């Protein structure tokens, strides 16, 4: 009986640790979100870039985007919230918009197009996966190297 209880306790501990691991796996997923203020072409229609868009993330101003500008931020978790203060045309009053996006788990880099989002287009129009191609230097650069010598570096 005592032995059985011991095994049940061990099993529960293992299960709890696995659950924590799964939880960390979900909540800790990092994404790089790129925010674009570029003209979007979708289904033959054009959605023009804003005159100016201020991007605020987590209470801090991330960037002030002009036409054809892009900024980026990193996010941990599957949801992303930002505040946009947009000036559509020169001389217009700025308007404030809060954007809440659910980020796809499998995408590392996510490109969000502001004009597309503001035009209420379907998600696939304004959110796309952004894959960074390695530069030729990076691609050719590093080869395998192990160290035989004792490193002198700091500890």
């Amino acid at each position, binding site marked *: 009986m005592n032995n059985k209880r011991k095994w049940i306790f061990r099993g529960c501990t293992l299960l709890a640790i696995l659950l924590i691991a799964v939880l960390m796996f979900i909540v*800790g997923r990092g994404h790089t979100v790129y925010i674009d203020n570029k003209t979007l072409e979708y289904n033959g229609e054009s959605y023009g870039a804003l005159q100016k868009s201020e991007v605020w993330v987590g209470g801090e101003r991330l960037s002030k985007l002009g036409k054809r500008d892009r900024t980026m931020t990193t996010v*941990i978790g599957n949801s992303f919230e930002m505040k946009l203060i947009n000036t559509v045309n020169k001389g217009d009053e700025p308007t404030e918009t809060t954007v809440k996006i659910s980020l796809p788990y499998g995408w590392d880099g996510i490109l969000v197009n502001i004009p597309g989002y503001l035009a209420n287009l379907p998600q696939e129009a304004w959110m796309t996966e952004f894959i960074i191609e390695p530069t030729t230097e990076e691609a050719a650069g*590093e080869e395998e190297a192990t*160290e035989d010598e004792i490193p002198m570096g700091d500890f």
Partner: protein
Amino acid sequence: MSTKQQNAGKTALNFLRNNTVPLMFILICAVCIPISGFSPSYLLNEIITRLGRNAFLILSLLIPIMAGMGLNFGMTLGAMAGEMALIFVSDWQIWGIPGVVLAMIISVPFSVILGLICGKILNMAKGREMITSYIISFFINGIYQLIVLYLMGSIIPIAHGSIKLPRGYGIRNTVSLLNMRQCIDNLLAIRIGGVKIPALTLLIIALMCLLIVWFRRTKLGQDMRAVGQDMQVARDAGINVERTRIISIVISTVLAGFGMILYLQNIGNLSTYSAHSQVGMFCIAALLVGGASVDRASIGNVFLGVTLFHLMFIVAPQAGAKITGDSMIGEYFRVFVSYGVITLALIMYEMKKRRQKASIGEQLALAQKEEEQHE
């Protein structure tokens, strides 16, 4: 000379004998600090950073010492397990504190397996645990390199090009941990007069210390102490000596894995093939500098050791540069001192053992003489 004076002299001599290494380091630091010209706040900042970075790793050495297995050079195995876990977590893009926690969980099975292997081998090499664990760490390093260099990306799935070598398999020399850099150190960090105190990291270390204190009082902890004092007596008392020794190494390896993850989250990048290579050496040197020996170490030794050893690490290059005009002298000096202090501690341990043996022999001879006189 009166008996009182003689006793005081003996006590002072014993104190000097037992604390040669820490005293030597205090002397080195006392000379080098003014020469280096660093401000006290800078030194304090550096010491606290390094305390948070290294203390957990060094604490992992205490349990095998308690079990009489000496200084566990095999802690490198745990460090490798931690690194493998970090490679996976980086590839899965798990960032921040969840990344650190997940890496710690993933490192456990690797550490347990490596600890079991190490413990089993050390049981076959009783009395020569330190040199054996040192060589095991080289052997496992070979396997680690095989896995990381050839199997990761080819058999073990690795998705990200930023981690993989351009040829399509194997891991790059450096893996960036920028997205989890100092995530634990910065959370709840306090700034006092320009000195950053990583409160959460220090809290984790404090909890670890409490855990060790508690562990010493448990049945298993008592068994380990008994095994450490005398294996034969422990066996006669019904303790499974081999099992107890293996458990001590497994615990040490798991803790070393956690320590390595904490260490690397502070640094912010992982040198895939060399980060673990000097960990054992420097941790052991720091512990010895704190006044520990092969068969005796306490939590106090860990903190004194980290402070003195790293103080020397910080000031030596600058002091070397000021004295000789070449900072490399200081760099060589600190590496040379690390090895030197281990050698010195081992020699002193051996001398102490011989002295003890000789004194027991003398006492025995004296007792025999007295017995003969009585007859």
